[in-house]
């Protein structure tokens, strides 16, 4: 490589890495705003704004789903296994909604209740045929495979 080309190469690489660092710092500074949702722990600590549209993310806590048989009203707890937030919602739930499922709920905080306007299911990176899930459940290994998240 001749010296002129080498010089150009270094100038370009220098500029790109400088830009990378700058963008990295900006992203770091903004990281709270880039997060799609607040966790129940952040809400318990009062980090989330009250009475403003926010999203809450976590798992649907086992045994907390309470469906109103007369309407589409449903109440459930969202947990990150440290804190719980009670959610109430009226509307159609996604197919994947179930206990132990990750969800992202949009709505606002009112007292200790979270009034949801939209419920989205978050699925994880695990894919399995149903027979395998059944076999794992019977041998008690399903939780272990899910990284203990479904406890």
């Amino acid at each position, binding site marked *: *490589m001749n010296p002129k*080309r080498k010089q*150009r*190469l270094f100038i*370009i690489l220098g*500029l*790109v890495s400088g*830009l*990378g660092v700058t*963008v*990295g710092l900006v*992203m770091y500074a903004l*990281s709270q705003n*880039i*997060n*799609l*949702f607040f*966790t129940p722990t952040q809400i318990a600590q009062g980090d989330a704004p009250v009475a403003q549209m926010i999203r809450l*993310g976590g798992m649907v806590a086992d045994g907390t789903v309470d469906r109103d048989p007369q309407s589409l009203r449903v109440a459930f707890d969202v947990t990150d296994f440290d804190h719980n937030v009670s959610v109430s919602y009226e509307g*159609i*739930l*996604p*197919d*994947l*909604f179930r206990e132990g499922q990750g969800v*992202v709920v949009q709505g606002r905080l009112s007292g200790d209740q979270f009034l949801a306007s*939209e*419920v*989205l*299911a*978050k*699925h*994880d*990176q*695990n*894919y*399995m*045929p*149903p*027979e*395998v*899930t059944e076999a794992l459940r019977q041998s008690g290994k399903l939780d272990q495979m899910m990284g203990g998240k479904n406890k």
Partner: protein
Amino acid sequence: MRWRWFHQWGSPRWFYERAGRWQLVFGWVSLGLIAVGTIWGLGFAPVDYQQGNSYRIIYLHVPVAFLAQAMYAAMAVSALVLLVWKMKIADIAMQSIAVIGFTFTALALGSGAVWGKPTWGTYWVWDARLTSMLILAFLYLALIGLRASIRDPDQAGKVCGILVLVGVVNLPIIKYSVEWWNTLHQPASLKLTEKPTMPASMWIPLLVNILGYYIVAAYLVLGSMRAILVERERRSSWVKELVDRV
């Protein structure tokens, strides 16, 4: 001579002929791989315990999303070669990849949206992964527009090359968005360094398709580059000879 092959590929005539041969091979190989991977994924891979049949969209979504990013990386390498060595062929590569890369990004966004509806309950959400992919699509689009708006090809190549290199910072953001921030999009199931989080009966057809899409992308880029090469070099003697031979 260490650099000889490099400069040979930079020669338009050499490139046109070699690329033509490779293109033929890539075309048929990718057709075979994608046919096998797609039929396997749609008909023979087992159904998912949670998502049912909707997960079968991964056999298209994951490969095109991979390629959307890989092609940007290839375009960045071309930009570097253009800016450092002033090699014309690298400029043509950038021009070709911008169009094909944009198409793949649009397919990734579209197939992801269709998958999102039954799985998440929404077509779109402004999470870090989806937003950074949308930015990638806009970057590709900006490059296409920029080139169209500058008349002098040398000037256009230089300006586009700089924009391509600036946009490189988006690539690690896309890749790590699902780990750095809370997103609705799940983390990757197939990684080079870890065991896949799906059984072999699901990931093997996916891998076949990923390979097939890589090769089809190479096929499409080479084809587009050869077409652009003929247009740009229409006044040169080798193109005239080429036409005489046909």
